[in-house]
């Protein structure tokens, strides 16, 4: 009997031949990611549990991103707690203002194909883009992993998504994942792994895959999986070993469902307020007045995304009384965008470029809105009140669509 | 004017202490006023009664142009501010919104928080602790604005 990507990773982690969906197993953790919002809670639970040492201080990555720069006086307490814990336990990997956690975990060279990773943030599913098994957990479980280096998991069933062909101009991987969430529903993949394959996926950059893996959670998925290839190897700066090369779904693997799409059928879409699975073609929403546009986040704040936006905005101006906020996902991306002129193009068009971090997406600062305002955003959630009040409307879209909306001052199609 | 209680503050009392930046964008003065003097005396908004006085030293109200500073004092019912000297913008703002600001060189050093005081605006004198203090009288132009109830009232009168 063949195996899916996630089954192979878990089996390899356990040192066994194979695992079956539904099995409850205890995995050895390769990496953990701790973020700044959760760190005080993690530290409390860690001490409460009676631990004094982190199982492997070199395997824990502490990242400040939700609260950078601090917008409330008490935010800096989280930094102090994190710094003290890092010192107490000898953590060697601490990022204090380098960007969003999910960007840094792969970009800074931590997560590699085949790794098992847990993070105190739901978008930890992102690392599936390089063929890792990664998922979000709470701070209590994180404290337990820090003490033991292990965690129990139920081996998930896998939904296979096959996309063949070439995407039309103006369509980005964000449009694919939004459409998929719409088709599956916000809980359509709960507890399951989403495994992506097909020629359209093979053509995709790691950045595009990240956007999709990142949003797998929005369909409820436990994790996402992409087969590591040459692009992955280059991105991770490694040579793939035999195990990593073999991380593809076997032809005779068990899938609970297989969804097949033609890439040519995708169109630019948006998730409408206030559910991620309320998907409609941008075409149908054209002309809706907007107040603000946000391009950034761990979903769509990468160089490729900023370049796509810059291409739309080049030589144009953001509409009067509309605010465009651009938040690169990491310091590295910011510097690359600086070097290649993308930031210049964006700023000249009228964008407000903020320091890399979670920004508006986490709803604490970075462009919060009020009653009756409407925002088009490239991040992952449009929940009620996420970026303002219950009467703030959030539309999720690709960077290209978002940029087109900023220019028009209303919902618009980038390639029209 | 009737007797009121004195709340006394130090020299160079700046507008950030009267009302901190983080509250300035609240929707209205009523939401802001509960944070008046928060860094110095968080209980002030609860303790102060309509008709009470704020007494300062030199350079009262220095710092920013935030009109929220005199406005929260007025909204809490502060009858007047008496100080040895005032910072310019605070002074102007107070007059404009109809909050009397009185310069009196001797009184501040002679009183303590909690003392009772009585102010006679038109005579330009204050009485406290059995003594009478003479205050600098306002220029006529400013007295006019004050007596009309502030600049907006004067605007509506003209209009």
């Amino acid at each position, binding site marked *: 009997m063949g195996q899916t990507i996630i089954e192979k990773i878990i089996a390899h982690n356990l040192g066994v031949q194979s695992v079956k969906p539904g099995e409850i197993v205890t995995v050895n953790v390769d990496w953990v990611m701790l973020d700044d919002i959760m760190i005080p809670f993690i530290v409390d639970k860690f001490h409460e549990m*009676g631990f004094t040492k982190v199982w492997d201080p070199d395997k824990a990555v502490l990242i400040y991103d939700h609260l950078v720069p601090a917008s409330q006086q008490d935010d800096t*307490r989280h930094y102090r707690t994190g710094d003290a814990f890092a010192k107490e336990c000898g953590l060697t990997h601490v990022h204090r203002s380098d960007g969003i956690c999910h960007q840094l975990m792969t970009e800074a060279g931590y997560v590699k194909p085949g790794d098992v990773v847990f993070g105190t943030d*739901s978008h930890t599913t992102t690392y599936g883009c390089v063929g890792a098994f990664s*998922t979000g957990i709470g701070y*209590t479980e994180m404290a*337990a992993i820090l003490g033991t280096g292990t965690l129990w998991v139920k081996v998930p069933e896998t939904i296979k998504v096959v996309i063949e062909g070439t995407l039309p101009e103006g369509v980005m991987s964000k449009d694919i994942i939004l459409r998929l969430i719409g088709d599956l529903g*916000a809980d359509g993949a*709960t507890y399951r792994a989403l495994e992506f394959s097909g020629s359209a996926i093979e053509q995709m950059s790691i950045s595009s895959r990240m956007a999709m893996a990142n949003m797998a959670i929005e369909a409820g998925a436990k994790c996402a999986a992409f087969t590591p290839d040459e692009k992955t190897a280059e991105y991770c700066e490694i040579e793939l070993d035999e195990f990593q090369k073999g991380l593809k779904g076997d032809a005779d693997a068990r899938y609970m469902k297989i969804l097949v799409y033609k890439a040519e059928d995708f169109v630019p879409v948006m998730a409408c307020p206030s559910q991620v699975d309320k998907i409609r073609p941008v075409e149908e929403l054209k002309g809706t007045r907007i107040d603000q546009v946000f391009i950034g986040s761990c979903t769509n704040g990468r160089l490729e995304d900023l370049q796509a936006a810059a291409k739309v905005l080049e030589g144009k101006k953001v509409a009067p009384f509309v605010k465009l906020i651009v938040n690169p996902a990491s310091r590295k991306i910011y510097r690359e965008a600086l070097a290649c002129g993308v930031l210049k193009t964006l700023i000249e068009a009228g964008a407000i470029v903020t320091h890399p971090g979670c920004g508006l997406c986490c709803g604490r600062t970075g462009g919060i809105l009020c009653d009756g305002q409407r925002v088009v955003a490239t991040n992952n959630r449009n*929940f009620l009140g*996420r970026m303002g009040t219950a009467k703030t409307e959030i539309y999720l879209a690709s960077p290209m669509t978002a940029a087109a909306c900023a220019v028009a001052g209303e919902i618009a199609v980038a390639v029209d | 004017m009737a007797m009121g209680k004195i709340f006394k503050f130090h020299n160079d009392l700046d507008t950030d202490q009267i009302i901190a930046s983080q509250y300035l964008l609240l929707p209205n003065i009523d939401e802001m006023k509960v944070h008046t003097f928060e860094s110095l005396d968080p209980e002030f908004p609860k303790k102060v009664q309509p008709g009470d006085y704020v007494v300062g030293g030199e350079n009262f109200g220095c710092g920013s142009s935030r009109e929220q500073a005199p406005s929260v004092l007025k909204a809490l019912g502060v009858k007047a501010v008496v100080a040895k000297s005032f910072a310019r913008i605070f002074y102007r703002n107070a007059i404009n919104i109809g909050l009397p600001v009185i310069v009196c060189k001797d009184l501040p050093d002679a009183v303590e928080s909690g003392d009772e005081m009585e102010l006679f605006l038109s005579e330009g004198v204050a009485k406290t602790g059995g003594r009478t203090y003479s205050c600098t009288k306002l220029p006529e132009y400013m007295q006019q604005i004050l007596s009309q109830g502030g600049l907006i009232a004067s605007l509506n009168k003209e209009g």
Partner: protein
Amino acid sequence: MEQFTGKVWVLDDDIDTDIIIPTEYLAMKTIEEMRQYAFSPLRPELASKITSGDILVAGKNFGCGSSREQAPEVVKALGIRCVIAKSFARIFFRNAINNGLLLIEQPDLHDRIKEGDTITVTVNQAIEAGGKQYPITSLPGNLVEIIEAGGLVKAMRRRNGRI
């Protein structure tokens, strides 16, 4: 078998963690400070109305969204005895169990109940509401262990010889 009765609050499908506890309150020092803001984007009055022993009944996918463990913690801190939903989002489910908040999956109850009703839960067996019985299934063994230990923290304290 453990049994309890409580008053019901009813919520819809897809109640996400930003509704349960919005991000702006997540960095408060304690769950006690946070709990007054529970469900505020959807029903700002709810947190003040819930009393200890009440039961929350919701539709599908309760707790979807972020991994914030503050979500089950505030629900528990409000005194909610258990949450009954058609289905739960994965991370919320784990976090609730780890904190000793009882979750029950029941597909039919939500559609046949209204807010203010009183129901009786017999753990691992059934729910009685309006004279009708709704069957419930029991949890997997490894989760029962955590709940029996009183949550993950206590399980770990025991492991580390602290209790």
